[in-house]
C-alpha cells in the first residue's frame, strides 16, 4: 500500500521541517525546542493536553506566526515565501463558516480551487472535475447542491475537508477535525484521509484527541506539552501503556496526567 505512493513519488524530501522552534505571547514562552518533520505519505498525529501549544505550533508551521527562534520549512521554503499555497490543504479548527448568506456544499468546496495561485481566473472544466472528485471522496456528491447549514455537523466537517482536498494538496493540516463528529462521519473521514495518503502520496498532520478512528493508520504520534515529549509509533506509545484504538479514553486521560 505504501508502494503505490513510492512508485509515483520517488522524492522523499520532507514536506515539512521545523527546527528549534521557540515562541510565546507577550513574554511567556509557549513552545520551546520543538523539532518536527513530516515526509511524503506519512500520517502524523499531534496530540497534547489543552494549552500545550498545539494551535500555536500549527500557526507557526503554516507561517501565520513567526517563531522567536528556530526555522520552519514547507516544501523546502520559508512559509511566507511559499508561492504555491495549494500544496497545503488546511482544515481549520471548528470551522464556523460565517453563514449569514446561504452557500452550498459545492460553492464551499470550489473555493479550494482558488489556491492554485491564479485566484482571479475563471473556473475550467478540470476545476469542476476536481471539485466533484473531492466531494465524492468524502461521500458528499449527493449533497453538493444543498445549503451547508442544512447539513449535520459531521457532514459539514466533511465539506471543509473536501475543500482542503480540492487544491490537490501534498500536505494536509487538520486542526481537531473530528471533534464531536458522529461515528459514520469519522469512518468516512478516515477513508478519505487514507485515500489521499495512498493515492496521492500526501503527508498528513492531524491534531486530534480522538484518534480511535485512525488508530491503525497513524504512522507517528507526536505528544506536545510546551515541547515534544514523545515522538514515535503507536506501538511504542502502546508499550508505555497508552492505546489509541481499544481504549479511546486512555489518550485524553494520559495527556491530562502528563507533567
Amino acid at each position, binding site marked *: 500500500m505504501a508502494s503505490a505512493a513510492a512508485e509515483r513519488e520517488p522524492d522523499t524530501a520532507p514536506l515539512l521541517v521545523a527546527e528549534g522552534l521557540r515562541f510565546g505571547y507577550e513574554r511567556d514562552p509557549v513552545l520551546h525546542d520543538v523539532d518536527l518533520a513530516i515526509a511524503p505519505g506519512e500520517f502524523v498525529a499531534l496530540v497534547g493536553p489543552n494549552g500545550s501549544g498545539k494551535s500555536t505550533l500549527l500557526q507557526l508551521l503554516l507561517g501565520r506566526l513567526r517563531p522567536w527562534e528556530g526555522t520552519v520549512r514547507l516544501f523546502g521554503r520559508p512559509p511566507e515565501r511559499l508561492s504555491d499555497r495549494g500544496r497545503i490543504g*488546511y482544515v481549520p479548527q471548528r470551522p464556523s*463558516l460565517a453563514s449569514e*448568506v*446561504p452557500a*452550498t456544499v459545492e460553492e464551499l468546496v470550489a*473555493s*479550494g480551487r482558488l489556491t492554485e495561485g491564479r485566484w482571479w481566473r475563471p473556473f475550467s472544466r478540470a476545476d469542476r472535475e476536481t471539485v466533484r472528485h473531492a466531494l465524492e471522496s468524502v461521500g458528499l456528491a449527493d449533497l453538493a*447542491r444543498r*445549503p451547508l447549514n442544512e447539513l449535520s455537523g459531521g457532514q459539514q466537517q466533511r465539506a471543509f475537508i473536501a475543500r482542503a482536498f480540492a*487544491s490537490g494538496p501534498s500536505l494536509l493540516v487538520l486542526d481537531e477535525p473530528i471533534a464531536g463528529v458522529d461515528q459514520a462521519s469519522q469512518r468516512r473521514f478516515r477513508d478519505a484521509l487514507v485515500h489521499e495518503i495512498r493515492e496521492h502520496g500526501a503527508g498528513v498532520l492531524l491534531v486530534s484527541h480522538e484518534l480511535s478512528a485512525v488508530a491503525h493508520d497513524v504512522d507517528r504520534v507526536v505528544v506536545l506539552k510546551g515541547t515534544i515529549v514523545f515522538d514515535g509509533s503507536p506501538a511504542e506509545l502502546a508499550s508505555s501503556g497508552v492505546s489509541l484504538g481499544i481504549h479511546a479514553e486512555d489518550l485524553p486521560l494520559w495527556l491530562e496526567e502528563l507533567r
Partner: protein
Amino acid sequence: MRFVAAVGLPYPFELAFMQRALLASVCVGVFAPLIGTFLVQKRLSLIGDGIGHVAFAGVGAGVVLGTSELWTALVFAVAGSLAIEWLRRRRRASGDVALALLFYSGIALGVVLLSLDDALTGEVFGYLVGAPLTVTDGEVLGIVALAVGIVAVVVALRRPLFSIVTDDDWSRVAGLPVDGLNVLLGVVTAAAVVAAMRIVGILLVAAMMVLPVATAQLVARSFAGTLRIAVAVGVATSVAGLAASRLWGLAPGGTIVLLAAGTFAIASIARRAVARSPVRTQA
C-alpha cells in the same frame, strides 16, 4: 449634448427626465444588492451608511471648490473606506469609537463646508434623501460608468470575495490576498455609495445594499442564488418605486426603500407560512 433622449416608453416613463431616473435607478438596483451580499456576509451591513457620511463631506467640498459633487464625493468616500479598513486592522478593540469619529466628522465637515457657500438648501437635501428625477445627463453617465466598473469587479472576483468574507482564516492560509481584497471591497463599496446617493440618498443608500439581500437570504439556497435574487429584488423595487413616485407624487428614494422593506416583510411571512405547511416535503 443629450446622453439620454426620450425614447418610446409607456407612462410613467415617457419623459426624458423619468428615463434618466429609470436608467440610474436600475443601475443602483443592480450594483447595490450585488456588493451588499458580500457586506452582509461579512457582517458589515451598515458600512455603506458610514461611508455615506464621509461622502457628504465630499459633496460639501465639491460645492465649495466648484468641482463635480459626484466625483469629489467619490474621492472622499474612497479615502474614507481606506481609513475604515486601516482602523479595522489597527485598532480592533476601540474600532467602534474610531469609526464613529470618522463618520460624524465626515457629515459635520460636509455641513460646515456647505454653510460656507450658503449652500445648505433644498438641492443638498437631494443628496441626503435622493432626487432621481433631477439627475443630469452627466450624472447619469457617471452613475452608469461606476455601475459597470462595480459589476465587472464583483462578478470577476466573486469567488475570492466569497472566500474572504466567509472564512478569513482559511483564505489566509490558502494564500489569497485577503487584505488587498478587503481594501478592494471597501473601495467598490465607496463607489457604490456615491453612485447611489443621487438616487436613494446618503441616508438610505445602505438600505439598498441590505434589504434586497435580506429578502434573498430568505428564499435562496446558494450564494450564487442569493446574488441573483437580491439583484432581481433591487431592480424590481427600483423600477416600481420610481413608477409609484410619479403616479402618486411620492419621494422616489424613500418609496424605493419602503418597497424593498415591504418585499422583505412579505417574503418573511410567506416563508413562515411555507415552513408551517403540512405538505412540506423537504427533510
